[in-house]
């Protein structure tokens, strides 16, 4: 019975929804809601990356660049082009997808980790542009972001943002779960296991990889847009290399290719620095140590390992 529930496709979604509903009831202050909202937003970005890493078997080391594209899109749209912030959010996610398509198309025809290197460079270029194009992006001091307005309702306050972020993640997770179960998802999994075998049974390997990359970019850009709008300000570090590495760490710690894993990984990396403030001077070292311990003891990531353990117990 329990095993059946665990195996059901939409169990993760339901579990996530319940968790989202419970947190505001038990959170002692708005601070905890903000941390939770950040977890939902970063989980959304990690979700896109887990499709790319866990299913298409490709690593993007510049994923924060796409996050930055979405964030600056939401900032620049209203400030320089007079567009509505909500329209800018969707436009910049679409633009990020288009850019991912253009960048990914030539690279993903090659085999091996070329995408990792290309995205590494791409992310750094984006961070540089955000940093130095002071007239458009405000330079290192960042730029203010107009408030999002949905049907005349200005979204503000931590509590409202909590629900917006939670809703966005639920929709993102629902799309991801459907995608994974679709023919495209099966094709992606096939090429993750063996590209040769996948192409032998008729999977267009480079096209499917490209699709995963574009999806990942759109997820990251959307998350970035939400982050910028929630904070009301965006600075170039959001698109920086360290941030890209954090996103990759979220996916690996949570468990590659697992939707709930992306959420757990994001929670781990967002909550941990808050929990470790007492050891602030050693925070970076502790963080690194914990990640190493996880990698050695749970190489599959938290969620897949836990799931396997549970299923073995139950059968």
């Amino acid at each position, binding site marked *: 019975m329990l095993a059946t529930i665990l195996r059901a496709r939409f169990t993760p979604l339901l579990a996530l929804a319940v968790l989202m509903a419970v947190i505001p009831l038990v959170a002692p202050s708005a601070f905890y809601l*903000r941390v939770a909202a950040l977890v939902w937003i970063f989980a959304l970005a990690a979700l896109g990356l887990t499709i790319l890493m866990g299913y298409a078997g490709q690593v993007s080391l510049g994923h924060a660049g796409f996050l930055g594209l979405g964030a600056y899109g939401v900032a620049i749209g209203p400030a320089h082009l007079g567009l509505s912030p909500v329209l800018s959010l969707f436009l910049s996610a679409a633009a990020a997808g288009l850019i991912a398509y253009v960048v990914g198309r030539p690279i993903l025809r090659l085999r091996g980790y070329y995408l990792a290197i290309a995205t590494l460079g791409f992310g750094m270029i984006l961070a540089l542009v955000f940093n130095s194009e002071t007239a458009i992006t405000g330079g290192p*001091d*960042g730029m203010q972001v107009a408030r999002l307005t949905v049907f005349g309702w200005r979204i503000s306050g931590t509590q409202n943002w909590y629900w917006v972020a939670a809703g966005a993640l639920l929709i993102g997770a629902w799309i991801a779960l459907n995608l994974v179960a679709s023919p495209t998802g099966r094709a992606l999994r096939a090429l993750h296991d063996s590209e040769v075998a996948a192409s032998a049974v008729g999977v267009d390997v480079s096209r499917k990889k490209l699709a995963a990359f574009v999806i990942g970019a759109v997820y990251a850009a959307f998350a970035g847009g939400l982050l910028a709008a929630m*904070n*009301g300000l965006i600075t170039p570090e959001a698109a920086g290399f360290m941030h890209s590495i954090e996103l990759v760490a979220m996916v690996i710690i949570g468990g590659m290719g697992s939707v709930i894993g992306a959420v757990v990984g994001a929670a781990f990396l967002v909550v941990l620095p808050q929990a470790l*403030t007492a050891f602030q001077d050693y*925070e970076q070292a502790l963080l690194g140590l914990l990640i190493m311990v996880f990698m050695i003891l749970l190489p599959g990531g938290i969620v897949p390992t836990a799931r396997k353990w549970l299923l073995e117990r139950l059968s």
Partner: protein
Amino acid sequence: MRPSAAVRGTLRALALAATLTSPAFAADPIKIGSVVSATGPAAFLGDPEARTLKLYVDALNKKGGLLGRPVELVLYDDGGDANKARTFATRLIEDDKVVAMAGGTSTGSTMAMIPVFEEAKVPFVSFAGGIEIVEPVRAFVFKTPHTDKTACQKIFEDMKARGFTKIGMISGTDGFGKSMRGQCLKVVGDYGITILADESYGAADSDTTPQLNKIKNTPGIQAVLNPGFGQGPAIVTRNYAQLGITVPLYQSHGVASKSFITLAGPAAEGVRLPAPALLVADKLAAGDRQKPVVAAYKDSYEAATAQPISTFGGYAFDGIQLVVQAIEKAKSADPQKIRDALEATKDYVGVTGIYTMSPTDHLGLGTESFRMLQIKNGDWVLETPGQ
């Protein structure tokens, strides 16, 4: 389940130990919050700030705290990430319930945190340079570092006093250079000075001779100003000497450190620049009101950390000091009353300058907070000693 006797005994012993190790205070601590970039790319700014805050709050508690209550510094490190800064700001307000905040290393992280404090009506004294922090004035936001505008005014004052009315300007295209150029252009008219040549260079350029040649060949130029940060100004200074330009060269407070003199070498001779008093702590005149404050800060900081003082630590010193003074003056740890007292700050002699705030000025520093220096024999010389 009730804890066992052994557990209860241990807890009691621990509680006793805690009360014995810290001075006995009857009242709750006054919580002052801070978020600085003690690690990450801005650590050279944030680290001295964090050290200064800890040092100063410790010293304050040894003297008996504030209003008979101990002071608790809640210090977080944002790692140079504005998003983290915002989260910690929320934490300070929602979870730690601080009564005031002194922090914010970069303009970006300060701007990210401002809405949190404005909304919660808790005073926030920033350590960041950007003029947008206090212009327009926000009810609960103050800052301690001088702005580029003050530096421009100081330089133009000096030029005016020396009778220069036609100048050339060559600025870096980095954030600092651009911002300062903009501020200088805004105030230059007030001094009857006109800029005849306005050149720029990239932050990574290794040669600025063409731009300087243009300035050299512009007739009537009496002085040249170089707003810039990092290695750019040193290159400009070297090229300036190589081209044999004889009119005086002014640098900005962006290069007010010994490394500039080292980088520019003999070419730096005769260069003038505005700098905070801290840079020339040992050269201040005996009657200078800032001298004792600066000397005391320098001695205590260098004794405690075995590191040379920096102006950034000075911003933090003034920031926490302003908050502490405001609490003393308000005789209350109520955020609204602290804010009112901060705004009424009058003639506070700090490390960075002498602060007098008002409802329209939440920085409160005039041009006298800068000292005009000249480089002579590889060292700073005060141009107008004392006040």
